[in-house]
């Protein structure tokens, strides 16, 4: 089985990849590659950076119905919003496999993991970031 990222350039083997403006220091996820979005800055020098691997639950929701295509999963599945302290931003992700969402509370510490999103018809395993409890 070949392992491929479900989306290119958004995460490494261990962390989310964002960009950081070399001029004003603003962080961006997904990685912004064209222009710093701080309107007072205007720099186009954006460096790829690993985002904090840990953060705290800002909110979450368990979905009880399948989302429409191009979603490939099955309900129930959980979407978690996690607040990263250094970057001062909230990043969405699915809850890691095997975590019971009824145990989840706002403020809980979470850690990013890279897990399977789906397997395609050719047997390729598509990977994505998810949030795991610590």
């Amino acid at each position, binding site marked *: 089985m070949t392992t491929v990222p479900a989306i290119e350039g958004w995460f490494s083997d261990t962390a989310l990849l964002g960009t950081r403006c070399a001029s004003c220091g603003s*962080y961006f*996820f997904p990685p912004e590659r064209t222009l710093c979005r701080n309107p*007072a800055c205007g720099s186009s020098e954006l460096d790829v950076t690993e985002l904090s691997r840990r953060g705290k639950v800002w909110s979450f*929701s368990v*979905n*009880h119905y399948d989302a*429409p295509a*191009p979603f490939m999963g099955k309900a129930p599945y959980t979407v978690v919003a996690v607040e990263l302290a250094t970057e001062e931003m909230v990043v969405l992700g699915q809850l890691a496999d095997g975590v019971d969402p009824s145990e989840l509370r*706002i403020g809980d510490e979470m850690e990013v993991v890279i897990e399977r*999103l789906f397997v395609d018809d050719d047997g390729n395993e598509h990977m994505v970031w998810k949030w795991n409890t610590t």
Partner: protein
Amino acid sequence: MEHDVAVLGVGMHPWGKWGRPFVEYGVAAARAALDDAGLTWPDVGFIAGGETIRNGYAGYVAGATFAQALGWTGVPVATCYAACAAGATAIDIARARILAGLCDVALVVGADTTPKGFLAPTWGDNASDPDWRRFRLLGATNPTYFALYARRRMELCGATEEDFARVKVKNAKHGLNNPNARYKKEYTVADVLESPMVSDPLRLLQICATSDGGAAVVLASMDYAKSRGFDAPARVSAVSTITPTFPNTVMEMPNFSTDSAATVAPPELPFRDAIAAAAYEEASVSPDDLSVAEVYDLSSALELDWYENIGLCKQGEAERLIRDGDTTIGGRIPVNPSGGLACFGEAVPAQAIAQVCELVWQLRGQADGRQVENAKVGLSINQGLFGHGSSVIVTR
């Protein structure tokens, strides 16, 4: 006020799930609005259409589609898309045209025919579309985002599932007598809490449906209104179509993250508060002046957020307003007397126009069976995907 334009006519095609071409609904609404104004289609000097993205090419050029269906008159046209804010943006374009002296009368029309189920990406299998990505990578439907806000509200403000249900119960009661509403049925808190869980903590009866429908308004300069014998027409006194200010710390659909506030402090007003503030400032009115509001209850929980965003109460006090009946017709400041999205479901490009229709009926005293007494100032508010503000203040 010098920026006021008159609303001479309003009209709607009832909301439902009819599955007929959206043009039919738009034409019906336009004709109703023209009749209401006592004008005919050739009197119109500009037409603005709200685009629908789920009805093929005719929907992309909705303004011209409506103009063709009404009969070509050579009238200048614009079509705009701003997701749920499309109607307000179309109103804004028409208003600007009138205020610039380029026309006396403008017609604004929005109509939609919606598919069943969750709204989904429309652009095919295109991995560069952020809307495609959020479905593929997260399975984040629109109700998922509403649910994130709702749970946050429960944590920060002590909101309960019962509070969210109370919003649905109130709106269902308001919409019972509205001839244009799709759902005319009373519910109890227990009914709502027994409906299936969709995106925890939101249940089916707390999430708005997607609907077919059409709405239209006829706007005119104050001088033209006077010349046609309108002594005290309802007036559009403000239209707010602002975008967020960086860093936007609200988790907006279809985004994967908020903006980072690590190097620039967040703006004094969060985005939704800023939408309302811009409208209040333009109309020179304050929340205390409001008689009635139409807010976008995509979820019943979101309606509570709007109470605070439009300044009806401080943050954390919205639950008290719904529990005390302040926002029920007969209360201090009735919200969604039309029944809101709870009774309509959403017909995207028509919805912000429909909100304005309701405000006009309220201010004229023509909202039979759901009238807010002595309504003088009404505010509508809503927000379009990606960061489109939408708020209209109507005065009389």
